[in-house]
């Protein structure tokens, strides 16, 4: 279909007009952006304190010197993140599933799961990090790892699993009750209904908020630095002290942002897809 369809003169005129308008809009946007950027640049660089700011926060030499150690530290963050990214959804889903169990036998389990989510969502992560990260190794129990990093991971997993459990629970409850009824009517057991019918729908629906929590997790893994693990944040701190310069913090911050961008885009994409699906959904 390369041949252009025959179009009336009137339509040709309309299209030419529209093309003209579009060109004009692009030009206006370009001009205004350039003008805006120039003004901003001048305002910043001409301001009296700028040279000092540049030297303190955006010092190229310091950046070059500190980057290797910070990057090395970031590798620890990435590994911690990987462990958390696996453990958190598994535990969160398990806790959410426990909370939806019915029947008197499961009463204590339900209560336990509810108390867990309430406590660990409420307690500040930093307190938990101190308690678990320093407290548990200090007990010097036999067979218990004394690495503060390991316990830091435990603290993060405990906190995030509580959040994620609530997200999953909301997802489970958002699946229409008729879906369970339909599954049970086919003779599926409670467990089969949950596993094959309810959870797949719930997980799909909560994918966007879950990815958001993952973005939050990506930077909160930097909190293990309070346990003196040499991660990106701690490395930046050391370098900053050495050079008496804040550029290492800026570098570490930039690296975390770069880490988060792909997930943030993924979250946007998942949200868009979920919205589209809802809108395309049948009426029956």
């Amino acid at each position, binding site marked *: 279909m390369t041949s252009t369809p025959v179009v009336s003169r009137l339509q040709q005129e309309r299209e030419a007009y529209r093309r003209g308008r579009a060109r004009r809009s692009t030009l206006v946007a370009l001009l205004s952006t350039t003008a805006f950027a120039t003004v901003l640049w001048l305002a910043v660089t001409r301001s009296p304190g700028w040279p000092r700011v540049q030297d303190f926060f955006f010092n190229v030499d310091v950046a070059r010197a500190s980057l290797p150690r910070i990057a090395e530290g970031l590798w620890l963050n990435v590994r911690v993140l990987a462990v958390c990214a696996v453990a958190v959804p598994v535990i969160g889903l398990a806790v959410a599933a426990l909370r939806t169990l019915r029947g008197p036998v499961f009463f204590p389990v339900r209560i336990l799961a509810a108390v867990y989510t309430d406590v660990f969502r409420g307690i500040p992560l930093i307190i938990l990090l101190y308690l678990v990260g320093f407290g548990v190794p200090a007990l010097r129990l036999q067979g218990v790892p004394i690495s503060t990093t390991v316990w830091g991971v435990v603290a993060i997993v405990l906190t995030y699993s509580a959040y994620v459990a609530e997200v999953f629970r909301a997802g489970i409850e958002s699946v*229409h009750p*008729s*879906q369970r*009824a*339909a*599954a*049970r*009517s*086919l*003779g*599926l*057991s409670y467990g*089969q209904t949950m596993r*094959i*019918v309810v959870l*797949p*729908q719930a997980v*799909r629906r909560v994918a966007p908020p879950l990815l958001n929590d993952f973005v939050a997790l990506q930077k909160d893994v930097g909190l293990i630095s309070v346990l003196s693990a040499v991660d990106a944040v701690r490395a930046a701190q050391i370098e900053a002290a050495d050079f008496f310069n804040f550029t290492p913090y800026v570098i570490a911050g930039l690296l975390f942002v770069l880490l988060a961008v792909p997930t943030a885009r993924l979250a946007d994409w998942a949200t868009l897809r979920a919205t589209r*699906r809802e809108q*395309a*959904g*049948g*009426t*029956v």
Partner: protein
Amino acid sequence: MSGPALSCTGVVKRFGALEVLRGIDVDVHEHEVVALIGASGSGKSTLLRCINLLEVVDDGVIRLDGEDITDPRVDADRVRGRIGVVFQAYNLFPHLSVLDNVTLAPRVVHGVARREAQASAMALLARVGLADKAGAYPDRLSGGQQQRAAIARALVNAPRLLLLDEVTSALDPELVGEVLTLVRELAGQGMTILMATHEMGFARQVADRVCFLDDGVVREQGPAAQVLGDPVEARTRQFLARIIEAGRL
């Protein structure tokens, strides 16, 4: 001849203080089609849910082929496997293709091999006129096609009894016909059916008997033509008059 396929005796169901069913007596014999009619909120869905053991009755007995299924010791999953159900809406699992919807129960509950389950599912889909939609997801189907797929799925366990709960009331008027035609075919093939419906014209054509639920009891039941055409009870007449006013007969 043995007893009825389904027999409800003195069925009572309460939700808190609200007594929805106050002693229901209904029998459905083999190859018989019985229509439940009654105002909105009269308890038609509740009765169907009790029969399917989705609700626990507060009194009375429900027997399926003579077996008391309201006995708390019976295996509810096994009983449900013998009853096919189609609800008003949200029947199909949206994350599974039509074919997977239909093969789910045989594969998961009865351990039938995938290939075998798919072969019989395709036969069922052909029977409801959806052979070409087997691979489609439910949201790509029209409402009428979705309900026909749901009926195919309900038939997959070769159920003893089919419960239909207002299967057309969520559909656009032009889609109602295709679903009702399918139900009529099933009735013609000797399926035992208990259906709640607002489609009085359809009930009159297809149902052998009609039960009018009112105020938690069966106010009147009998041959479809008699209950719908020449009701004995004043309440039945009032109900039908309102339906006629609403233009649904």
